[in-house]
């Protein structure tokens, strides 16, 4: 287990380093002069020169990469051109909004998907199963931003519920309003994740229920409840934990669309602003932070998996 942990950790570090190369390299591909792209065609030569110096464009790419990497290692992602402030601070402020949405959505998804998935698996082939499976399929194929728009229409325009459809300017300073503004986004993202999770829970419980040890447990007279919750669920939970972890990382960026629907100034909308303002240092920062989150969560999920499942030997 120790050797596996070390190897997996090394792999994660290599992936992370490659991600920095990829992100930095991608921005080298910008056609023409990045300073010109940021300032537009009517920029004065003096302004151009000043921005070039600020971006370090007068230095060779390798030197720029290592300067940037050095900063990244110290937690300094540089300065945003548009906001003229520290990118790390900007990202942290946005994460304070995006992370609660992602966490609450995943919690909601698990609360819906686990009981319904077990129910569908226990009643496999029945009308209940069919209904649950069709609902899950609908959640997968319908785009989340459309579902969000429909929620606005149903809950706000039609039912006139007092739910704000944009985040308060002061952010968390007004916690009640902020929480109310997050109800529909969490419902939207949560239901979409629940759909994925539900199919997975159903599938893994169904597979476990056909195993020999479940037949043994039934044969020795245990109640169906004990068989399902004590024996089957424990083993069926492994893939579910994996997917919950992976969903967490994916949602960090996937919420960008839902954030746009509900006017939430999270990490996603920060990346959109960065792109439209051609704030390349900020783009680099956001992409790297999200990639790092994903790599970290993947690592944790793999380690947790190896730790939870004694059958899996990674020596």
């Amino acid at each position, binding site marked *: 287990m120790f050797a596996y942990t070390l190897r997996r950790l090394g*792999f994660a570090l*290599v*992936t992370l380093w*490659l*991600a920095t190369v*990829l*992100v930095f390299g*991608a*921005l080298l*591909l*910008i*056609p023409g002069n990045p300073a010109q792209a940021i300032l537009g065609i009517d920029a004065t030569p003096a302004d151009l020169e000043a921005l070039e110096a600020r971006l370090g464009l007068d230095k060779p790419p390798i030197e720029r990469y290592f300067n940037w990497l050095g900063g990244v290692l110290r937690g300094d992602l540089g300065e945003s051109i548009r906001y003229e402030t520290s990118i790390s601070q900007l990202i942290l402020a946005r994460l304070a909004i995006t992370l609660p949405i992602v966490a609450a959505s995943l919690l909601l998804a698990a609360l819906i998907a686990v009981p319904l998935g077990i129910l569908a698996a226990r009643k496999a082939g029945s009308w209940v199963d069919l209904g649950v499976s069709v609902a899950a*399929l*609908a959640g*997968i*194929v*319908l*785009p989340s*931003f*459309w*579902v969000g*728009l*429909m929620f*606005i*229409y149903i809950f706000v*325009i039609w039912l006139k519920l007092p739910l704000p459809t944009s985040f308060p300017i002061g952010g968390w300073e007004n916690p009640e309003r902020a929480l109310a503004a997050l109800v529909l986004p969490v419902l939207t993202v949560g239901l979409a994740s629940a759909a994925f999770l539900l199919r997975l829970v159903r599938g893994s419980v169904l597979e476990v229920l056909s195993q020999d040890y479940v037949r043994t447990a039934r044969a020795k007279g245990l109640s169906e409840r004990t068989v399902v919750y004590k024996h089957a669920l424990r083993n069926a939970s492994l893939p579910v934990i994996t997917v919950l972890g992976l969903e967490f990382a*994916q949602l960090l*960026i*996937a919420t*960008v*669309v839902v954030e*746009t*629907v509900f006017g939430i100034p999270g990490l996603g909308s920060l*990346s*959109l602003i*960065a*792109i439209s303002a*051609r704030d*390349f240092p900020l*783009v680099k920062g*956001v*992409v790297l932070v*999200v*990639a790092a989150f*994903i*790599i970290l969560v*993947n690592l944790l999920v793999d380690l947790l998996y190896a730790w939870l499942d004694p059958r899996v030997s990674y020596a």
Partner: protein
Amino acid sequence: MVNRTVTKGRTGWSQLPISLRLGAFLITLNILMVLASALYPVDPNAITPNRLAPVFTEGHLLGTDILGRDTLSRVLAGAQNALYVGLIAVGIGLSAGLLLGVLAGYFGGWLDQVLSVLLETLYALPALLIALLFAAVFSPGVTTSMVAIGLAAIPAFARVARASVLSVKTLPYIEAARALGLGSGQIMLRHLLPNIMGPLVVQASLVFAVAILAEAALSYLGLGTQPPDPSWGRMLREAQTYQELTPYPVIFPGLAIGLAVLGFNLLGDGLRDYLDPRKRS
């Protein structure tokens, strides 16, 4: 799976998995929408004074948007855009993923390890993130988003191709081909490829569904198809601004996305069941 041809021939349409049949039906519907778009007399970009017409208005079956453009003809034209983007994205992902996966699986060793690390890194970056990065570097547009979605799909294809090659390459017929003195290129092209295509076709169908969703999301964000070209995601972005006036311009593009994605998802699931020898007997 290798001797699939032996049992083939007696399976009729009615014996295929229901999901496969339903998926094929929905995809056919999508193709018909593209054909209908070419035949439909109303120009999807024609601005008329008949703004925000409700459904079943004469001449505008699904109503009109705030500029008086016909929703039906825009939804039909959106189908063309969705299929086009999906096709190119899957083409990029499949060709590059197949090449890398087969090379990694067939040759193994250091090549396999290097490719695996590279692909894992790419896998860590979600399609949307790659698309955002691309939109920043190149200008946002339909080509940029197609390439980004295709690039993001490479690891998924490469994984499937590599795993399939690993399971096939130790089989006696490959050894026989090698013993006959065939070169690696010939073995890969003539003997490996035909036998690993099944799982790749399944993957292609599933990625097609993801690509349609991703393009819609990018167009909704303003990073995909640019105006005035009709795209389902773009239509939703525009309709959101006057949603309290009429819901129809929001409802129909969303349903169109859902049906197209459902079609490719069901086709992929159905093909997987059909090709799985354990589920066929």
